[in-house]
């Protein structure tokens, strides 16, 4: 046996070759794939936690999760979805797409790119491992308000702090890389105001990241010293201030909310024109609207804190500033509708998800406007109305945005078309389930159900049951998504280089699947129409 197998032994075992390819890669496409795989994996882990939450809330009383474990699920679900799913998902898309969209051979800082990805698996391993520690995982909500997280936090809080630090480093490095790439590697002729909107929204997002992730790092560092080095930043007993924590956290947290949605705006702005077969309406106003949203996001953090006893003047200022955000957001929605108007539309899966994104995100925007009104916020605050609001902007918002992007560019990445019939089935089941899950939460909140409770009084039972059934369906539909993506990677109808008949942009001028190295020589820009005719 040993003799016959001799010739088959390669220089390097396939395992080592596989590991060194993915561990050491500096290629933006491979790193993009790594980010997307990480995001997808954590999507199912954090989703499973949501299933535990909904299972417990299926009926009043304690059935499946003890209160302490329930709080851990709520915390980890939030942390993983925000930091582990949506952010790496968008960074993965940025890695894949930005160099291809601006005609660059790779990201500007490829080794840094490798480093910023490979920090993440360690960060999330630290975070998730806390579930198995004595005293359990962090149980104070993803907003980790002091002193519940400092004085009263479980021992594993320190692992959470280090995990957040690592994610922060990764995000800042990734954001710097994106900024440097966009500013330096654009093909000749592509001025800033000619960049695709996905690139624009990511440029703005990257600036937000560079500005606020260090603030989050500051918050967790102060927590760490409060916990172990006898400082009293957030402890009233030592002369500190628990509300200071909320100011620092939300100064990070509110721009973070836009970090989680702006790239989604960019994606919708790429996809809707393609399937409406009409140029994006109001390109310039789209760019300016995105910039104004980003600027305003730095002065509205107080709207998370209306019940902390803010003075009247501060409440009024924050209320007006928050209401102002509705204006540029409205402009974006109107522009998308105007892009569709008198177009020639078809409704392939990416378009369906993009339209779902626009409509349901707008519903989340409406409830956001209602929440901005301080007097009424006293009734909405910390109820399921808020849970409904932010799930509407994050699930059918950010997550649908990522899904529509995946369907749109998957043929470019794999060279194969996905199964259109299954894609449509995925969309329709997801949109029904997402509304069944999150719409009744508005009613629960208005009727008075506080958020983050393990058990509720009997009048909330009916809607909670509907919500839980919807959540179960929603979880199952995402298994279908996994199947569609795997099936597409393994084969399918071959994709053309342009994929969609009226897609515009440099990424559609290169073959499908995109070769590992593209644009070693700069392409022509503006793109001559004949370039698309290659195949």
């Amino acid at each position, binding site marked *: 046996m040993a003799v016959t197998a001799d010739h088959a032994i390669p220089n390097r075992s396939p395992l080592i070759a596989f590991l060194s390819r993915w561990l050491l890669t500096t290629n933006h496409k491979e790193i993009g794939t790594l980010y997307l795989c990480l995001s997808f994996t954590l999507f199912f882990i954090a989703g499973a936690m949501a299933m535990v939450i909904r299972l417990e809330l299926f009926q*009043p*009383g*304690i059935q499946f999760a003890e*209160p302490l474990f329930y*709080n851990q699920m709520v915390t980890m679900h939030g942390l993983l979805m925000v930091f582990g799913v949506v952010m790496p998902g968008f960074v993965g898309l940025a890695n894949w797409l930005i160099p291809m969209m601006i005609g660059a051979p790779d990201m500007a800082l490829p080794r840094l790119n490798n480093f910023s990805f490979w920090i993440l698996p360690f960060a999330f391993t630290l975070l998730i491992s806390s579930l198995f520690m*004595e005293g359990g995982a962090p*149980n104070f909500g993803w907003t980790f*308000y002091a*002193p*519940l997280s400092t*004085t*009263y936090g479980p*021992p594993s809080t320190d692992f959470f702090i280090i995990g957040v630090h690592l994610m922060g480093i990764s995000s800042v490095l990734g954001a710097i890389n994106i900024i440097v790439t966009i500013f330096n590697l654009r093909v000749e002729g592509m001025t800033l105001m000619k960049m695709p909107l996905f690139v624009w929204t990511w440029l703005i997002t990257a600036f937000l990241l560079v500005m606020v992730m260090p603030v989050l790092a500051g918050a967790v560092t102060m927590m760490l010293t409060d916990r172990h080095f006898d400082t009293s930043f957030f402890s*009233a007993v030592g002369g500190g*201030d*628990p509300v200071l924590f909320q100011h620092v956290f939300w100064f990070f947290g509110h721009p973070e909310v836009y970090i989680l949605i702006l790239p989604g705006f960019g994606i919708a702005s790429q996809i809707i024109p393609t399937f*409406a*077969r*009409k140029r994006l309406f*109001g*390109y310039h*106003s789209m760019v300016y609207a995105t910039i104004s949203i980003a600027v305003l996001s730095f002065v509205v953090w107080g709207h998370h804190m209306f*019940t*902390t*006893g803010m003075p009247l003047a501060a409440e009024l200022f924050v*209320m007006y500033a928050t209401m102002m955000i509705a*204006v540029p957001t*409205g402009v974006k929605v*109107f522009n998308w*509708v105007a892009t*569709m*108007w*008198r*177009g*020639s*539309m*078809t409704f392939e899966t990416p378009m369906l998800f993009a339209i779902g994104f626009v409509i349901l995100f*707008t*519903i989340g925007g409406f*409830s956001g406007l*209602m929440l901005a*009104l*301080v*007097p*009424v916020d006293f*009734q909405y*605050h*910390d109820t399921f109305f808020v849970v409904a609001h932010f799930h509407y902007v994050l699930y059918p918002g950010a997550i649908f945005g990522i899904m529509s992007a995946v369907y749109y560019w998957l043929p470019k990445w794999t060279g194969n078309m996905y199964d259109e019939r299954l894609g449509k089935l995925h969309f329709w089941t997801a949109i029904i389930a997402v509304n069944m899950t999150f719409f009744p939460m508005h*009613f629960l909140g*208005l*009727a*008075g159900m*506080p958020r*983050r*409770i393990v*058990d*509720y*009084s*009997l009048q909330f039972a009916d*809607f909670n049951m509907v919500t839980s059934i919807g959540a179960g369906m929603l979880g199952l539909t995402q298994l279908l998504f996994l199947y569609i993506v795997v099936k597409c990677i393994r084969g399918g109808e071959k994709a053309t280089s342009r994929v969609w008949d009226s897609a515009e942009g440099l990424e559609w001028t290169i073959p499908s699947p995109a070769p590992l190295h593209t644009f070693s020589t700069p392409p022509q820009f503006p793109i001559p129409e004949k370039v698309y005719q290659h195949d």
Partner: protein
Amino acid sequence: MTSIINRRCRGLIVSILLAFSNTAFAAVMDLRPGVTDISRRILELHHLSLAICVAMGILVFGTMFYSMYAHRRSKHPKPADFHESLLVEIIWTAVPILILIGLAIPATSALREIEDNSNPDLSILITGSQWKWHYQYLEADFGYYSNMSTPAEQINNLETKGRNYILEVDNALVLPTNKKVRFLTTSDDVIHAWWVPDFAVKQDAIPGYINEAWARIEVPGLFRGQCAELCGKDHAYMPIEVEVLPEEEFDQWILDQLLAIELASGQAVADRAKTWTMAELMDIGQTVFIDNCATCHEADGSGQGSTYPALAGGEIPTGPMPTHIERVMSGAVDTEMQAWAPQLSDLELASVITYERNAFGNDLGDIVQPLTIFESR
């Protein structure tokens, strides 16, 4: 068999239909009008903003759906090629601004009134702690704790859940009608939030802070609310119950309370004078333990991991008695083990400590008398 299922299904369908046709249904899917002037103004503001959002939604989504229908490729094969218009951009920037101003005006005036905490008739200091409320009547100078009264058996699905499941307490806050009542909120440990939807009052209780809110309640009755800020394990089990009495009844209630406090202090003297037997203390101790300690340390003393240590064979309950008394009375710094000296009477403390030293197989045979506790205070 099928007829049973049929009957059940029919019952379910009927109850769903009833739920939707019932006018009471509005109460489980919309804000409550409440019982104060402010709460009704807030409801109006809520309906105004909701109406504006629905109108905008119909306009935007209506246009979108029409376009998806009329401008699909099979019907409209040749797309138009317009892609900008300064005029419409200005219009759909300016019009929303005007709508927002229209919304901001009533919101501002309501907020100014809400934030006017001056000239209260009565002030209540509300202190949150894990997981109960303490109400102090500042003018009459007395106070008491308010604990959830729903038994653990209902929570653990061993008994049928009552009508006011997890919204009921042992001692409700009692308030008068038609007086400007000022709520001052603070906390002994983590951040809580005192929320009664019918008063439209939600105010964070923050350690080191005293926040203000107020309500002028127009009708007598029972009103319920819950803690609204995640405050640890039993956040869901921190209800608020407010009993609103007509003014004269409220004044009488205050007098009754002051009398009861005097009687209780006489009783406490008698309790101290008496030497209690093991059986008596164990009996009282068990009740006190179930009501106050079992939520963390469990009814059988087995605890919950390292956060809530086991008392069965535990270091403190089987260690020296003075340490045990000290721990129960003063709590443990920086943990959820709170100081019980201000919350329980000498007799209650003596009996619960006796109980802990003799229950769960600890069997030390120690007896703690109320006098010992009195001397340790």
